[in-house]
């Protein structure tokens, strides 16, 4: 076993009344990759932030090579030999690669107040080459994709030759290629006798890379496990504190689905997408897989009308729009229902018994199908398509809004009566969704920002399923979601399939696609290159060849 580099003794972090990390002891040894795993909100990132001086320590202490260590800021941590790459993007778009790498350290290249740009660029080039990357360091960071920018951050962190390298959930947003790169960098560091702290909630990845795993739950240290004792089921159980079946995907291998076509793309060229042909039937789950630059996310955007189509067409078959007369009749029904609901509530005030509230009539009557050409978001919404973006927090949810705001905004069609959305209907609708999806919250008025990753994603699901979308396009539906909620999500997707929904899952996790899809389409360089039917014998390794 390696020498102890860093040790935490009872460190605790409180944000106001919230205890994020509670009395945690763990050690990081030189020459080892130490993993830190836990559900969302279990305190992983908070611990690394304390080690790097981003957050102050409420109580307890950190011991670094036998001496007490109390960093004031990340620069301080760097001087103590600790380097970190963070979960989010840590580069500034319009600075050049070199400027990004030496951001805050320009002094190194300054003489008499003037910056020696050439020297800085040469050093930046060296820093990148040290990790096996070659870039034009004079171009702005924005010219490179997310993955390359992460590599810049790594080069930056490693330039200072840290003895402890902290990687915080960086790999979840990367393609396999980028992951492999980071993995090999971490392994090399450990081999050189440096310490690595790797934070993630991707269990298989951690099990593969780490020598030792520390499991956190709700800010408490639950277990520390050596590599020889790694067992996936055991660790999962520790993470969520309950037993989880080894396989949380659907159990059947029956790829059958409805006859009716729900969504069809024919010969579409749009942006990087080339000649896309795709058919999704009712009651079918179609998985879209590929590397992150292969166009899988753009395909999702295309199906929701967000990509400009240069040729070909996307067509959806969904319940047709109601005529004015049908709408009026529907509004009448809803109004009657609202009155009944209010009446029941008022009566319950006097009787002091619980109100027997009849369910709000929100659904459109079953009607014939209409044909919709999808060219804009508006078209997609008219065609009952729901879409969850890969970047859920930025695009799908309104973080500052309440759960109610988030659920109701896409469901105005389901709630309005002649253009007016009654508050009572909104409340009832939101309460029903919260119950249906078991969203953990203090009330429907709680801000979505305060929810955990899994519950946020439940709100996104509820938002589109609640508004009676028939075609669901979910990009990375389980990104940033912990094991417990994942299971629920998969069950839910399967239930939706049985109810006849047409579902498209876009994911960079092959096991998820194999586990859930009736059909998997693999994309490469903007086109669909291979199709797999659901089968019990399909393995990751069969697919990977077609992706790279």
């Amino acid at each position: 076993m390696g020498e102890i580099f860093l040790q935490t003794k009872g460190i605790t972090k409180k944000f106001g009344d919230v205890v994020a990390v509670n009395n945690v002891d763990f050690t990081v040894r030189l020459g080892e990759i130490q993993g830190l795993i836990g559900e969302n909100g279990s305190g992983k990132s908070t611990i690394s932030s304390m080690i790097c001086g981003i957050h102050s320590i409420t109580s307890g202490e950190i011991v670094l090579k036998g001496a007490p260590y109390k960093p004031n800021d990340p620069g301080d941590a760097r001087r103590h030999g600790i380097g970190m790459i963070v979960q989010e993007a840590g580069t500034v778009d319009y600075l050049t690669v070199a400027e990004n790498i030496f951001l805050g350290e320009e002094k190194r290249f300054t003489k008499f107040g003037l910056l020696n740009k050439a020297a800085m660029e040469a050093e930046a080039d060296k820093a990148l080459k040290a990790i096996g990357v070659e870039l034009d360091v004079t171009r702005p960071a924005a010219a490179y994709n997310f993955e390359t920018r992460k590599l810049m951050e790594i080069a930056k962190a490693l330039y200072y030759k840290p003895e402890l390298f902290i990687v915080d959930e960086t790999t979840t947003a990367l393609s396999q290629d980028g992951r492999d790169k980071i993995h090999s960098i971490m392994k090399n560091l450990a081999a050189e006798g440096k310490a690595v702290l790797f934070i993630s909630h991707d269990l298989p990845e951690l099990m593969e890379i780490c020598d030792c795993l520390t499991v956190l739950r709700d800010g408490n240290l639950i277990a520390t496990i050596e590599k020889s004792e790694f067992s996936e089921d055991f660790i999962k159980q520790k993470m969520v504190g309950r037993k989880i079946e080894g396989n949380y995907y659907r159990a059947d291998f029956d790829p059958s689905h409805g006859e009716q076509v729900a969504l069809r793309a024919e010969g579409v060229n749009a942006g990087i997408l080339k000649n896309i042909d795709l058919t999704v039937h009712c009651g079918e789950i179609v998985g879209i897989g590929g590397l992150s630059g292969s166009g899988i996310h753009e395909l999702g955007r295309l199906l929701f009308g967000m990509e400009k189509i240069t040729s070909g067409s996307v067509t959806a078959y969904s319940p047709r729009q109601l005529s004015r007369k049908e709408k009026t009749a529907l509004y009448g029904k809803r109004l009657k229902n609202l009155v009944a609901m209010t009446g029941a509530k008022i009566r319950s005030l006097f009787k002091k018994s619980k109100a027997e509230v009849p369910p709000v009539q929100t659904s459109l009557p079953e009607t014939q199908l209409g044909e919709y050409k999808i060219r804009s978001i508006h078209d997609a919404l008219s065609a009952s398509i729901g879409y969850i973006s890969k970047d859920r927090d930025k695009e799908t949810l309104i973080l500052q809004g309440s759960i109610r705001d988030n659920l109701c905004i896409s469901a105005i069609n389901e709630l309005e009566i002649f253009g007016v959305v009654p508050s009572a209907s909104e409340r009832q609708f939101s309460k029903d969704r919260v119950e249906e999806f078991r969203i953990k919250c203090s009330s429907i008025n709680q801000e979505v920002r305060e929810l955990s990753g899994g519950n946020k994603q439940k709100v996104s699901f509820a938002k589109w399923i609640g508004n009676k979308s028939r075609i669901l396009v979910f990009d990375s539906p389980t990104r940033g979601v912990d094991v417990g909620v994942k299971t629920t999500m998969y069950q839910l997707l399967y239930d939706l399939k049985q109810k006849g929904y047409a579902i498209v899952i876009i994911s960079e996790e092959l096991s998820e696609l194999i586990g859930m899809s009736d059909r998997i389409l693999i994309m490469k360089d903007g086109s669909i290159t291979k199709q797999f039917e659901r089968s019990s014998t399909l393995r990751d390794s069969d697919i990977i060849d077609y992706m790279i």
Partner: protein
Amino acid sequence: MENIKKDNKTGLLKAGAFVKSNKNMFIRYGLLVLVVLVFSIATGGRLFSKYSINSIISQLTPLMIMCVGMLFVFSHGNIDVAEGAVIAICALMSIEVINAMGGTAGGIIVAILLNILVCEVLYVGSIVMSVKFRILSTIASLAIMFTARGLVTYFVSQTLGSYKLENSAALKLFSQTWFMLLVMIVIAVAGWFVFTYTRVGKYSRAIGDNPLSAQQSGANVNALKYICYAIAGFAVAVSTMFYLARTGSVTQNFGSGREMDVMISLILGGMLLSGGSKTRMSAAIVGSVTYVLLTNGLSQLGMPDMYVSLVKGVVFLVMVGFTLRRQSTVKALPR
């Protein structure tokens, strides 16, 4: 015993959380109550004498109408600063029209319609410009402000003294207390209803927080911007008549500073200038009442006008600082 202790604590925590999540509401009504209490004591009740009430209503009416309209614009996080100058140019035109038509009811109606037309052209025009050419909306509104103010200055300088209504009783209706109350209440209720219960309001709040998400949830962001600026323009047009009725003439500085009145009112009503989900129409309604009571109370206590402006400035600064800090505290919390 231990149980009781625990209950107490959760009770307190709950109360704390309630206050925290309803901070805007507490600011809104707390400030109103505070202003009413302080000034009714300090002025010995004079603030609420019959004469004073009439004066308060005549100041409140145009302000509240503007606040209600502007709230739609502000809810997107857009800030408009052209109100004062636009009011001046509308008032100037109204005087021309009313004088030309001999102060008849017909003339007043034509003037109102013309005001609405000009305001819509300026406001919708500025936001269309801002959207098409990707200019910050506040910059577009600054451009409108300078242009309009420049025109007013030019026309006023061409006449000796000021533009005056020849028939000073022409706009009498607009200074009748019952009529002011009626228009104010109708507009406030209509604004509240539209903002609280319809698509326009719901989407606008979402746009203020996250335009991308709003768009993906069905909001046509650009169309909503146009609609909200059109609503704001209408409100400015209507309030012009009440401002004009109070003075009967237009000078070079007519209407200047009204844009600040609107902003301070909204902030006093507990609104974040960045707009978003927390925006409520009551911020415009209660905030404008608080503001008018505050300025009236101060001048009744004998504070000279220049100090009143100073106080306005300080209030603005303090409230903006307060609302900004509230935002950043929330952001600092990690996952």
